[in-house]
């Protein structure tokens, strides 16, 4: 079966083609089945190949490589359509295929009564195809194909409700900000090609190792290349400068947010850096910038998350914050910890989104039933006390919250603690502090969310309340599956002090080349201490949220008034969007107008028309001179002779 690696991404492509071309004529049920079936097939195939690969040592070392056909061959630049299924991309494929299968099943229920059903599933399948191409690509250019393809699908899916200006604006914003990131990615590729003569991962890896390059070689080019690649990653994985599109991307349907803006697409930036770890390690400056930007994003997003009132906005900022953590891990050199957090984050964040999805779904029914159209089903202030009506959703949501907050048995704890420990161990004390404080904020806003939505009384009319009911089983089954994964997900990466096998570490060890000479302290006592500190942070955040929101007290209202200034800044997301608009969008439009109205019409056209006008003027002057009087004609002849006299003598 090793020859069929390319079939993994092609299954969703076939799904896309069927749904895309014949979607209108198929019934909703068949569309859902085709779409989810395609993902299921590719997931199963991935599992089979995964086991086949691990069974043979030689294969698991080098990875399975299928080269389909030559793509761009110009001079010495040769790139072809090839898929590489090695340990790293294999595990990532399993996660992507698995999570997207669950989300497909979920969306059959969620999108049941939406029109444009077939279009949704077609785009979703196309998205999975693009994501798998990105993951399984054997060279950077094919990864770039997946990279932009994923951007396109997120544009289509965010703008799914295209009749509303908000959705289509958000879609366009997402695509353009991604394009800015891709600009960096492309330039990074050029630098890499100049350095290593090829864009294939294996080729670059051998070039780095065989040349025995070390960070102190001070290769300016490598730093430049890695910074540009990181710029691409920030675009895609929503880090500080280019994160603005993620919160607006919530305008799309919730399963889309779950799949794209939580589990798969946003982590592709991190995945790319993990894949090119041996190159990034050669550029210590870049590692530092990645670490710092990761840390700052984590803190920054967490602060905004604490005051948001839209359930999906809170989760969006929490995603940005968790991604900040992943980049922090990469920055300090803990690539495997970063990758581990990708996996765990995918499980519990997808679960959180799907949970919020079923809540919104229920609220939507309630408002619909009560005939209210102006209230926003996503606003947590209209919810409250849903525990009684949606027990399954509540419990799965709680599991995910505990996971993300970092309570021990759950997945989140292991991966986040691993990151914090590795940050501290690589002597980045300040970054560790930022991380810890962000962890407190994380658990605070998550528990605030839980209390506001599920605990207390229902803040809405009686007619809405009786219409609340649990989501159908097709939606709750994926919730439960993800809840299980959120729990056991963490157990594949026990910290070594637990004396339990760190499965992931050993498995991915050959993937990471230690070219950067990064070393970590080995002090188990310190590690235990820090683990306790991170648990304390989680508890502190929980207690703080409970005191504020559990009871019916109006403490949060008073708090908001006293710190009204800070509160309003946080609520308006530090006015980042407005700043971007003022600094970039409006000036560009102005320059556009200036160029068109001034340079084009006045200067260039102006001169051309002026020349034409001058010619006509001379003509007119001459025709006035030729006024028909014979005297004037004779005089001109005379003048001519005088001129000849002047010339001759």
């Amino acid at each position, binding site marked *: 079966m090793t020859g069929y690696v390319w079939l993994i991404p092609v299954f969703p492509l076939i799904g896309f083609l069927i749904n895309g071309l014949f979607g209108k004529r198929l019934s909703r049920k068949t569309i859902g089945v085709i779409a989810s079936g395609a993902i299921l097939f590719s997931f199963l195939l991935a599992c089979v190949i995964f086991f086949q690969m691990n069974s043979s040592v030689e294969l698991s070392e080098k990875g399975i490589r299928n080269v389909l056909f030559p793509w761009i061959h*110009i001079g010495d630049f040769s790139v072809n359509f090839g898929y590489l299924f090695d340990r790293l991309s294999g595990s990532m494929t399993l996660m992507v295929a698995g999570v997207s299968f669950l989300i497909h099943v979920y969306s059959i229920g969620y999108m049941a009564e939406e029109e444009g059903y077939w279009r949704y599933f077609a785009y979703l399948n196309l998205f999975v195809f693009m994501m798998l191409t990105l993951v399984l690509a054997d060279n950077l250019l094919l990864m770039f194909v997946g990279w932009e*393809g994923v951007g396109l699908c997120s544009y289509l899916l965010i703008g799914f409700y295209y*009749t509303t200006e908000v959705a289509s604006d958000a879609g366009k914003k997402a695509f353009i900000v991604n394009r800015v990131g891709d600009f960096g990615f492309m330039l990074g590729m050029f630098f890499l090609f100049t350095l290593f003569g090829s864009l294939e991962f294996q080729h670059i890896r051998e070039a780095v190792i065989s040349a025995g390059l070390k960070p102190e070689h001070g290769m300016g080019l490598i730093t430049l290349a890695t910074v540009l690649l990181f710029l691409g990653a920030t675009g895609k994985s929503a880090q500080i400068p280019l994160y603005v599109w993620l919160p607006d991307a919530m305008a799309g349907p919730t399963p889309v947010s779950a799949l794209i803006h939580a589990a798969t697409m946003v982590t592709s930036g991190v995945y790319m850096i993990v894949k090119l770890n041996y190159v990034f390690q050669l550029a210590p400056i870049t590692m530092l910038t990645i670490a710092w930007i990761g840390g700052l994003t984590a803190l920054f997003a967490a602060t905004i998350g604490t005051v948001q009132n839209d359930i999906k906005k809170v989760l969006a900022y929490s995603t940005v914050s968790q991604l900040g953590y992943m980049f922090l891990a990469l920055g300090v050199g803990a690539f495997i910890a970063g990758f581990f957090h990708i996996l765990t984050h995918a499980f519990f964040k997808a679960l959180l989104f799907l949970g919020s999805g079923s809540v919104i779904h229920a609220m939507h029914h309630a408002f619909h039933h009560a005939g209210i159209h102006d209230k926003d089903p996503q606003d947590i202030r209209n919810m409250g006390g849903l525990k009684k009506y949606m027990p399954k959703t509540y419990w799965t949501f709680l599991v995910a919250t505990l996971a993300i907050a970092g309570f021990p048995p759950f997945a989140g704890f292991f991966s986040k603690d691993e990151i914090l420990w590795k940050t501290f161990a690589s002597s980045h004390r300040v970054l560790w502090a930022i991380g810890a404080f962000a962890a407190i904020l994380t658990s605070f806003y998550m528990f605030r969310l839980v209390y506001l939505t599920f605990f207390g009384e229902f803040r809405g009319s009686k007619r809405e309340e009786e219409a609340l009911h649990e989501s159908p089983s097709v939606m709750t089954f994926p919730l439960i599956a993800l809840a299980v994964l959120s729990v056991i997900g963490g157990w594949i990466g026990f910290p070594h002090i637990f004396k339990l096998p760190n499965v992931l570490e050993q498995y991915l060890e050959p993937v990471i080349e230690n070219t950067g000479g990064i070393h970590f302290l080995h002090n188990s006592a310190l590690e235990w201490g820090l683990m306790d500190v991170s648990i304390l942070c989680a508890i502190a955040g929980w207690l703080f949220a409970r005191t504020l929101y559990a009871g019916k007290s109006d403490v949060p209202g008073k708090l908001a008034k006293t710190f009204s200034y800070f509160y309003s800044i946080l609520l308006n997301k530090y006015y980042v969007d407005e700043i971007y608009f003022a600094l970039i969008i409006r000036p560009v439009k102005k320059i556009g107008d200036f160029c068109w109205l001034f340079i084009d019409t006045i200067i260039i056209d102006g001169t*051309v028309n002026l020349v034409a006008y001058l010619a006509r003027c001379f003509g007119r002057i001459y025709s006035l001179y030729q006024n028909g009087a014979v005297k004037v004609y004779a005089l001109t002849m005379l003048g001519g002779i005088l001129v000849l006299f002047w010339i001759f003598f």
Partner: protein
Amino acid sequence: MFESSFLSLVTFFPLLAVFILLFFSSRAEKGIKVFGIIFSIIHFLISLKLLFDFDYSVYKLQFVEKSKWIASHFLNSQYFIGIDGISLFIILLTTFLMPIIFLSTYSGITKKVKSFYINMFLLEVGILGSLVALDLFLFYVFWEIMLIPMYFIIGVWGGERRIYAAIKFFIYTMAGSLLMLLGIMYMYRVAGTFDVFKLYGYHFSLKEQIYLFSVFAIAFAIKVPVFPFHTWLPDAHTEAPTAGSVILAGVLLKLGTYGFLRFAMPLFPDAMVKFAPYVIILAIVGIIYGALVAMVQKDIKKLVAYSSVSHLGYVMLGLFALTIYGMQGGMLQMINHGISTGALFLLVGIVYERKHTRLISEYGGIAKVMPLYATFFMIVTLSSIGLPLTNGFVGEFSILLGTFKSSWQHAWIYTAFAATGVILGAVYMLWMYQRVFFNTEPSEENKNLEDLKIREIAYLVPLVIMIFWIGIYPSFFFRRMEKSVDYYLRIFKSKQTVMLIDAGKGGIR
């Protein structure tokens, strides 16, 4: 049938159509239209033979025909025609676009149909002639003849300001080509022959080369159009009928870049190398300027016109980067631009036939009423902004790679600025797409817009197929162009290294 003069058959085949059309009565419009479509399809099939018999293993001129034309005393030019990797695909693009154009103007043109078709066929002869001509005088004759039918097409069947646009188009190009005529005369006087390949061998002095190159460059820059000479393009496009602007954008603009690659650059390599940095800067300015101005346009056709200024800036950048990637990318981008911008104009034409307005504000939320049209428009938009797996990406990527790897000083700054064009491209295209197709529910009069008809789908599908074919499997084209581009690159490379060394700049990175 007659093997030796196959290329002349392909070039002058449309004249046969013109001759037959004369016998049609001008009232039998339907008959003329159907004849036009059938004839152009036959012509395309015939021209495919050029592709199949094209031997790209080694660089040599193919289908060459050389016979006496004017053997007078002070002017002896030969009827010397032939094709190589460079002109092959532009010729095929022309014959490929013609049937599509005739299909699209089935309902587009109502008055004076017969003379419209005659003009279109004459235009095609002019274009094919200039592409195959390898004798400077013959090239110049075809280059000018091409203007007349295009002038009539814009002038007679155009929009409101058609006469101003037609005159502006004619005078702009005529000014440039008259300068070129002076250059040709000077070269004939010095070298004694019009044969391009003999002239490649002839070494002009540097001072001569500078004058001659600037003269040729201005003539072709107006045609391309390069930044300062581009103001005729938006007028010509908005005023031309759909068919006119498709053929104008699809092929006529390519003649400028083809002229650069075939005549201006190889004939005067030393001057070209000296001017290349300035041309590159102009190309980049063109890219960014074109994109910025396209952003603020209110009329879709003007927007697309400015976008082609930006796209052709890429092609010029690719050519003048003097690297194998850049040149191949530039050549491919010429074809891509022909397909994607041609498709865009066809799409604008379709919606123009229904609503008779091109202002973006008149549209909104059409995706709901015309979903199929929206999908086609989306595919073409993606190809135009260069999304991977579409043709635009392959072209743009190789050009940017070529610029990056070029041995000009601080080449990577050029690449960075040119790459911003990729972002700006996405901005104006998607912003336009959003305002036209999304944003609101379709307004009252937009409600009853009916979706694509079979005929319209029939001529859009081949374009979409080409978009994905070049996007996914470009090496079919690269292999056929490789040898020719190598041939020309060898001429430039030697000159460039010499220039860089004595200019004290570092050698190749």
